[in-house]
């Protein structure tokens, strides 16, 4: 084995007890973990009670990809630049069902992974664009808790003053 294969591994444990071994460099993408590692208060096994195994495995897949994409491998296989390749990969990565998308954004928020947070939130924002309030509620299964008067007042304020 070459020297670089002997990387330090960190174990992340999901809320449902599954263990994931990741390279330290990948674990550092999760800023909450990074702080723990740098402050040397991390064991080699870190429990993540807010993230289940399904989501954690996706998060790790994302971080793995992004850490290794930073070092471009010139294999001539792709006609696109590494940046474009990554962008396409990201676009495919977020093609998941809505619940998973939300869970990913929550996980990115909790684990403090800015790029993944931005990616998932941008994707959710794209689902809002061009929709009426009722359509947005239906898309995200949200209950309208305004009174009729409140809603009228806001609509009027929007249209008369702030649009």
């Amino acid at each position: 084995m070459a020297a670089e294969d002997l990387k330090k591994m960190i174990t992340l444990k999901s809320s449902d007890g599954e263990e994931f071994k990741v390279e330290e460099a990948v674990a550092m993408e999760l800023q909450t973990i990074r702080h723990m590692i740098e402050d040397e208060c991390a064991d080699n096994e870190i429990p993540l009670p807010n993230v289940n195994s399904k989501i954690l495995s996706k998060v790790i897949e994302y971080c793995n990809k992004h850490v290794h994409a930073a070092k471009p491998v010139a294999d001539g296989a792709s006609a696109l630049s590494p940046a474009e390749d990554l962008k396409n990969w990201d676009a495919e990565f977020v093609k998941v069902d809505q619940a998973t998308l939300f869970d990913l954004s929550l996980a990115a928020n909790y684990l403090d992974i800015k790029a993944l947070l931005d990616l998932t939130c941008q994707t959710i924002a794209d689902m809002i664009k061009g929709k009426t309030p009722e359509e947005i509620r239906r898309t995200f299964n949200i209950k309208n808790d305004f009174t009729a008067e409140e809603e009228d007042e806001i609509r009027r304020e929007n249209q008369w003053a702030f649009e």
Partner: protein
Amino acid sequence: MSEEDEDQAPPKRPRATPPPDQVLDNVLETVLQFLAAPRDRSAASLVCRSWHRAESATRVSLAVRNILAASPARAARRFPNAHHILLKGRPRFADFNLLPPGWAGSAFRPWAAAFASAAFPALRSLSLKRITVTDDDLDLLARSLPPSFRELSFLLCDGFSSRGLASIASHCRGLRVLDVVDCEMNEEDDEVSDWVAAFPPGPTNLESLCFECFTPQVPFAALEALVARSPRLRRLGVNQHVSLGQLRRLMALTPHLTHLGTGAFRPGDGAEDEGLDLGQILTAFSSAGRANTLVSLSGFRDLAPEYLLTIATVAAANLTSLDLSYAPVTPDQFLPFIAQCRNLETLWVLDSVRDEGLDAMASFCKKLQFLRVLPLDAHEDADELVSEIGLAAISEGCRGLRSILYFCQRMTNAAVITMSQNCPELKVFRLCIMGRHQPDHMTGEPMDEGFGAIVRNCSKLTRLSTSGRLTDRAFEYIGKYGKSVRTLSVAFAGDGDLALQHLLQGCSKLEKLEIRDCPFGDAGLLSGMHHFYNMRFVWMSGCNLTLQGCKEVARRLPRMVVELVNSQPESERTDGVDILYMYRSLEGPREDVPPFVKIL
């Protein structure tokens, strides 16, 4: 799973995450940061209470398109984190001296006070359009705006002078943008403040400095010194007193300019212009890779045409925007330059270029999207310099045209119809046939069919200005086909109330309506009652409205501010209504009302 589990109802597993409507709350503010379009923002604010709160907290761009519609307190309460604020004031017809001065002179004061009291602590940029701003307002702002404040732009504003600019220059340390465009500033010749010298010493953060409309001379030494210590300057627009020699010196200090307002563009009498020749100007425009960075040229306030030709080969190819609206160039002077402008997207030009010049432009500028052909002499009986020939040529050559403003003396329906067929991307069509009630000069017919074709064929049309002789039929067409029209400007047209009825009952997206000197009366006005609360404003001047009719509108639409303005304050008007200007307001009628305005 064991067999026992399959027999029972599936056990309720504890959810790893809360239900969707609560999930989003954790990341909602981050999601909303990616939502910029005003309509999307409005929609998000109406979803539910938590979304309303999150949207209000994250709105960074605030537009109050009628300063009289909402108070600064209301705006600050709802959008305390605004970074960019846009305020618009007077209606557009005020530009043509139809509204007496002082109509809403202190509308900005409460906003200045709000900014001064840190109602918007994150404020970075302020854009004002058609607003009266005094030197005292500017002084107040200058002394109290937060250190994050960076950009100030005035468009079509008035009421302030160089003293106010000097306050801003000396106190707003981080200023990046100071743009004063098409403003009417008050200047006492002997009391002009040297606002350019008022900028503090040391490097500035200026990225954009435009003062093309500033009428007094700016001391050149101070200007040169300021530009020399502004390494980030990308946009510079100087006034007509800056000579070509002086411009050359300024250009030498600003190698990264993208937008240049060129001042006089003629050699002057000063030291900077001694020995100035064409070669030096050629060098100024071609050196330091400038040919690749400069994308916009304007100014040419006293153009010496030979210099325009000189820069054609080096400056024109990269230009996307060209404003020659102060340069009365002939076709001979225009052609060699425009022939090089293959990338031009925006062109403002005088009709001195004639149909010939427009035809040539259309053959070269295939990417043109925004065009204004402005009159050298804006009178009914002026020489005819451009005609339907120019319009047709433009439509043949510039198929991607999105917006046109075209002044002429006469027009034909055929040319307008041709444009409607050739330019499907048109969003803005403003035709100004300067002769009142002018029919199609070839057929003698009204211009109904031409405008009809525009609304029928240009499905993206949002703004329309009509002119020429128009019967009610033209308005029937506009009402029937102009379903996406939001702004409509009508002058000296129509036969009677039916025309206005067609508009108000047909144009379901209509938001801004400006009408002058048309035979429309109360019946026409009242036909729009169902729609007025959906409109930003209605302006009707020189029509046949009566006090009765306007009172009826005010009675039935209590939240509409219905203003009757006397356009000649010196003379008492007892008959009929001079100007009706009505708009929605959340605050009720304004209190500071000049004597020539009556609010019903």
